[in-house]
């Protein structure tokens, strides 16, 4: 008899939960119309450092917009507030699909923003494509997200530097700055090519970086050759064998493409474990606080390609204000301010541009919002554009300026700071070789 009571109780509990779950999905109707922006970010998994930055930036942007009274939508004849819904793709394609499905179908978002890892975004954008939800992608660097041919990507926009941009800036920097410096200092035979080694994440992003580098070197006919090309698996923590092989190829510089933790650790291991004392060039994905934190003094003289210099001395008023606001708003558990990263800056801009587009459209109709995003023209914000304006080209991509920063270790504050060393238009300091730099003359 007792067991029967137990059973009835268990069945009753399960039934109540089942009914309430069903009721939840059946009955949830938004109480009041707001502009719902869905943020797709990797809050867990290997991309969590970057994902957290995107989340913080998005919350900041939404708070600022709401504090300023929201967005005027003519269809409603009044200002609507913006609400942010967050979906975690867990840095996995299948979870990304579920997260976006949930944002679209359960949270009923009007527009999507975010998307970090390239392979995850290629999967998670599909529900957005299928349901015609405008998606401003601010993380994934593969151009495929707006150029794929198997799906109609007319609702996809790419507010982010693409891999092509990284590699273009880096090879130009190598040719324009590094090679002359080495020749001037008598470190290399002027007749020979610059020896570049690449160490990339074995995924769409890393391999894309390699492919585009090869392409730009060939297209521009630069005196650079890739002497070693190694890959590592996503989430790897031991890069020593690859770095040893790179060392054997005697490169003048190493271009590495990984996420924050991978890139910073591989630089550290190269200098610390392997003794490969060279110039390490990271790409902007690593522009996060964690990057500087892990590198510590090992980051002295190392290089970072970026389009948002959170640590560089002020080069733009908008950026300075943003950094100040961000650090004011976000503090870690110990109460120290958190430094913003690049992915967050993209996301922050994207939310402003979405709100602008909605205001222009005067409606929350997704097709109209899409049209307005496509035709947007507004002043540049955090990300600097080649013509000072935010606009999308026929590939739904932007045309940003990316630059090269060199890090220096300040032993009194125990902090890394950065200076822009390329291009000349933004340059704050001259590029310097690390004092213990080693390479071969010929």
């Amino acid at each position, binding site marked *: 008899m007792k067991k029967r009571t137990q059973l009835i109780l268990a069945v009753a509990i399960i039934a109540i939960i089942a009914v309430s779950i069903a009721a939840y999905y059946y009955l949830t109707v938004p109480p009041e119309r707001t502009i719902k922006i869905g943020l797709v970010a990797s809050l867990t998994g290997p991309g969590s450092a970057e994902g957290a930055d995107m989340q913080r930036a998005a919350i900041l942007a939404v708070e600022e917009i709401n504090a300023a009274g929201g967005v005027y939508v003519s269809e409603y004849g009044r200002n609507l507030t913006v609400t942010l819904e967050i979906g975690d793709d867990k840095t996995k394609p299948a979870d990304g699909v579920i997260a976006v499905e949930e944002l679209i179908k359960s949270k009923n978002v009007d527009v999507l923003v975010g998307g970090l890892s390239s392979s995850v975004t290629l999967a998670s954008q599909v529900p957005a494509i299928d349901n015609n939800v405008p998606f401003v992608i601010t993380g994934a660097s593969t151009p495929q997200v707006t150029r794929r041919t198997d799906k109609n990507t007319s609702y996809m926009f790419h507010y982010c530097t693409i891999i092509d941009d990284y590699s273009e800036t880096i090879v130009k920097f190598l040719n324009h700055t590094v090679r002359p410096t080495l020749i001037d200092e008598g470190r290399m035979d002027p007749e020979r090519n610059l020896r570049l080694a690449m160490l990339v994440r074995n995924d769409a992003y890393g391999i894309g970086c390699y492919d585009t580098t090869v392409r730009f070197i060939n297209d521009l006919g630069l005196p650079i050759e890739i002497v070693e090309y190694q890959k590592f698996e996503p989430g790897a923590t031991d890069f020593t064998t*690859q770095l040893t092989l790179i060392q054997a190829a005697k490169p003048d510089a190493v271009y590495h493409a990984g996420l924050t933790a991978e890139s910073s650790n591989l630089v550290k291991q190269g200098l610390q474990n392997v003794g490969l004392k060279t110039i390490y060039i990271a790409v902007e994905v690593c522009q996060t606080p964690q990057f500087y934190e892990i590198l510590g003094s090992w980051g002295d003289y190392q290089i970072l390609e970026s389009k948002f210099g959170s640590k560089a001395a002020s080069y733009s008023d908008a950026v300075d204000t943003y950094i100040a606001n961000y650090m004011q708003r976000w503090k870690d558990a110990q109460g120290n301010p958190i430094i913003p990263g690049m992915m967050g800056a993209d996301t922050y801009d994207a939310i402003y541009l979405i709100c602008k587009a909605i205001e222009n459209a005067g409606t929350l109709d997704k097709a109209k919002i899409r049209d307005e995003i496509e035709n947007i023209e507004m002043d540049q914000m955090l990300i600097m554009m080649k013509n000072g304006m935010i606009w999308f080209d026929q590939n739904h991509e932007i045309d940003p300026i990316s630059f090269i920063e060199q890090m220096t270790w300040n032993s009194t504050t125990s902090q890394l700071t950065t200076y822009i060393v390329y291009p000349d238009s933004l340059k704050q300091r001259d590029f310097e070789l690390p004092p213990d730099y080693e390479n071969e003359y010929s």
Partner: protein
Amino acid sequence: MPLEISLSTLVQIVIWGLINGCIYVLLASGLNLIFGVMKVVNFAHGEFMILGGYVSYWVSIYAGLNPYFSIFVSIGVIGIVGVLTERVCFRRVLGTSKLNEIVLSLGLIYVLQNAMSVLWTDKERQISSPFEFITVHFEIININMRLDLLIVIGVTVLIMAGFYILIKRTKIGRAIRATSQNRSAAMLMGINVEYMDMFSFGLGTALAATAGTLLAILFPALYPQAGAMPALKAFTIIVLGGLGSTIGAIVGGLAYGLAESSAIAILGGTWRDAIAFAILILVLVIRPTGLFGEKEA
């Protein structure tokens, strides 16, 4: 490309192989001990390794202890955790069915991994060593080596020597070996085999804890999911080295470390995980009982 590798590069690749091998030796020896005595495959062994790394990490941060000394704290804590795990979980399913034992360890993987995630997030950590900036130069082969690498090798040698003496020269070691060779005869000798189960499980996980600490000193490999793959590889190592063979685990661990770094060097990083299993499958196709395994009655 691999053909024109210079001597110093080759030596370095061998060293990376051996250092990874050290971690595998510690991990495989512990797993092997547990398997020998209890005939249980603890697939969650890697999680104890990472847990051990975390213990050392926090001890070295909050108590300011040199990480190489915090290994002892880690051994103690994880040893006790291991004993409790045996007592609460494994003892109850021991002998019911092999599948239950395997799935239990799978359940422990989920519990431990996600509990660590909830407690400390997925952030990758590295234990900072006081010798971080010291390198040693070897003139003959012209390579610089981080001092910690040498210390890690030294610590592994010491721990394995201690383990070897414990197993081969002491009364409890004899009892452990007796239990693993013939459980019922061991009972007839007056050995409390359940106590041996508990002790070996604790000792095995303690070895894993040292592996975790050393790994976290060398690499930023301290995150909750980091243990799953090494444990599986450690198991392939003991299958190849002969289930229950102490020497097999040591030689197999070092050999596998070398195989792995050569695989990365020759085939590329993609094959790092696959190589262990490729070897395993090849061996098992030829000899279903393992390379040195004995036919079971």
